[in-house]
């Protein structure tokens, strides 16, 4: 779950893209609602969100296919809000790849260079160079319909990179690939991005993809950006229930603040009336209604009470075997379940718990995150 190794600290790099209060409406629907965003140069940035949340619309405004109703788009410091697509230093990898079917692979890649009036020999060299970059050197004379899905995806990538854009936009570039190929391509894309150093903005609705690939992720919902941060941060410290729920699995327990001590607080849980320990950077006061979020893998389960301050007792009511780990559903009160993930380390081991076992659950106070929205 760690992103690519940190290069130069992100905040020191110049901004490749700045969005200021960008809004786009289609009739009554607000596809993108007053979005502010800064993407640093050389960053691999993901827009993550459920279907229809406005990811594509946001990307198309950066590319110039949609003009915002209000707000500004700055690329490399230049205001391009109203510039047409053919005047922006960005290129796009389309979800359908949009390869020109009547041209060969090499002609596809050369298309953008031709528009700039680059000399023939230089153009040929550049085409060869980017085709080598995506390991398709020997495919220049093929037509798109003579390629596999993965190869087509790489041609689309090569074509978009040929003009050396300031920003490369990718709209679900791996959506059409099967699982194995997708995972391999994710790593190849990240490697490529690190080598050429171009800013990538990637749209995806696959949270694993966003987590494995990105330097930072923006989580979108209903045209808004809910949270922006590195994968580890949005996973460990979500700032809202929606984000916690969207990224990975989360146990969300409602309660009220019983006492506060610095960052940590004791929460009285609504479901059990018991206490739970959790931490937060948000200033809290006694009596506040909050939600405690704990990830399933952060919870320890024991057969006997350990006497920990934040302990919940319950009954195993369901077990989902996932191979590498098992998810135990533990009922802690009527209708309130907690998921606990336990790794299956050795196949010889018996499952530690079975149906109807009474278990005691606890977690390190720092692993409980307090959410107020």
């Amino acid at each position, binding site marked *: 779950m760690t992103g690519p190794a940190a290069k130069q600290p992100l905040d020191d790099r110049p901004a490749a893209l700045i969005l200021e209060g960008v809004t786009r409406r289609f009739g009554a629907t607000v596809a993108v609602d007053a979005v502010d965003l800064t993407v640093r140069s050389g960053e691999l940035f993901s827009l993550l969100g459920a279907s229809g949340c406005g990811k594509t619309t946001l990307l198309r405004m950066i*590319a*110039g*296919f949609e003009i915002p109703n209000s707000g500004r788009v700055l690329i490399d410091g230049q205001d391009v809000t109203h510039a*047409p*697509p*053919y005047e922006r230093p*960005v*290129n*796009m990898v*389309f*979800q*359908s790849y*949009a*390869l*020109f*079917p*009547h041209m060969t692979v090499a002609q596809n890649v050369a*298309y*953008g260079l031709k*528009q*700039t009036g680059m000399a023939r020999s230089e153009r040929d060299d550049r085409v060869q160079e980017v085709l080598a970059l995506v390991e398709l050197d020997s495919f220049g004379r093929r037509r798109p319909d003579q390629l596999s899905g993965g190869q087509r995806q790489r041609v689309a990538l090569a*074509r*978009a990179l040929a*003009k050396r854009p300031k920003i490369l936009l990718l709209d679900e570039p791996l959506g059409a690939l099967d699982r194995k190929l997708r995972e391999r391509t994710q790593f190849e894309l990240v490697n490529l991005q690190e080598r050429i150093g171009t800013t990538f903005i990637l749209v995806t609705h696959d949270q694993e993809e966003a987590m494995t690939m990105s330097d930072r992720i923006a989580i979108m919902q209903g045209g808004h950006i809910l949270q922006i941060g590195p994968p580890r941060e949005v996973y460990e410290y979500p700032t809202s229930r929606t984000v916690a729920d969207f990224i990975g699995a989360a146990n969300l327990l409602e309660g009220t603040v019983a006492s506060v001590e610095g960052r940590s607080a004791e929460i009285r849980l609504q479901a059990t009336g018991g206490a739970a320990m959790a931490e937060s950077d948000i200033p809290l006061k006694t009596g506040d209604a909050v939600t405690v979020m704990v990830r399933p893998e952060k919870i320890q389960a024991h057969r006997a009470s350990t006497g920990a301050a934040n302990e919940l007792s319950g009954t195993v009511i369901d077990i989902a075997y996932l191979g590498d780990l098992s998810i135990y559903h533990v009922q802690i009160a009527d209708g309130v379940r907690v998921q606990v993930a336990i790794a299956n380390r050795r196949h010889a081991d018996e499952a530690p718990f079975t149906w109807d076992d009474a278990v005691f659950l606890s977690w390190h106070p720092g692993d409980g995150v307090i959410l107020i929205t």
Partner: protein
Amino acid sequence: MKRLSPWLMLAVVLGYVFLYGPILSLVVYSFNASKLVTVWGGFSTKWYAALLENDKLLDAAFLSLRISVVSATGAVLLGTLSAIALVRFGRFRGRFLFSAMTTAPLVMPEVITGLSMLLLFVSLQHAIGWPDGRSPLTIAIAHITFATAYVSVVVQARLAQMDRSLEEAALDLGARPLRAFLTVTLPLIAPSLIAGWLLAFTLSLDDLVVASFVSGPGSSTLPMVVFSSVRLGLSPEVNALATILLATVAIAAIAAGVLANRNRKT
């Protein structure tokens, strides 16, 4: 495949005889040695030879070909433009009216098209002195007006199924809109343009009604000459000419069909 029942088979055969019997007999009698159209006098190609001597028919044939080429080309230009406007420009004001007016000639009775064109030309001549009488030009203009509708429908179908992101990719790669159209859209819709051209060509070539309204002295098209000569009595020469025409139109129609089909697959 399921076998047809005998009755169904019979119905199919009768249907085809009904449709194509007259045409077949025309082709057969064009090789008739006898001058009497209804009496078989042995095989001969002499009427084809005689046809080459008949200046009136040949002139009319060449005139018709010229008009067809001009009007097919004009119809492809206008039809393509209207198709682009209808498919690509979104819901502009008056789109419905424009769409209806583009396709109206498909269902308009030819007599009405012909008559209205004639009235238009006559009043135009009064008002601005152009066109100067009826001529091959007025026939071509009249043909363009109704053939445009057919071309527009064919091209619209192709444009609608073309992935829009192809054009966007071209723009994204730095091509201006006109350039993107010429290098990406046009090559991809080319088969439908050719199909539309062939369709317009055949429509113009065999039009009798509209041409009769808007032709002037000395500008009789082939169908007009054939029609008037037949009124004076059937001639085997006309059979020969009709056979040639039939072959031409059939080839054009098949080519148009094949191209339209290939269109659908890509």
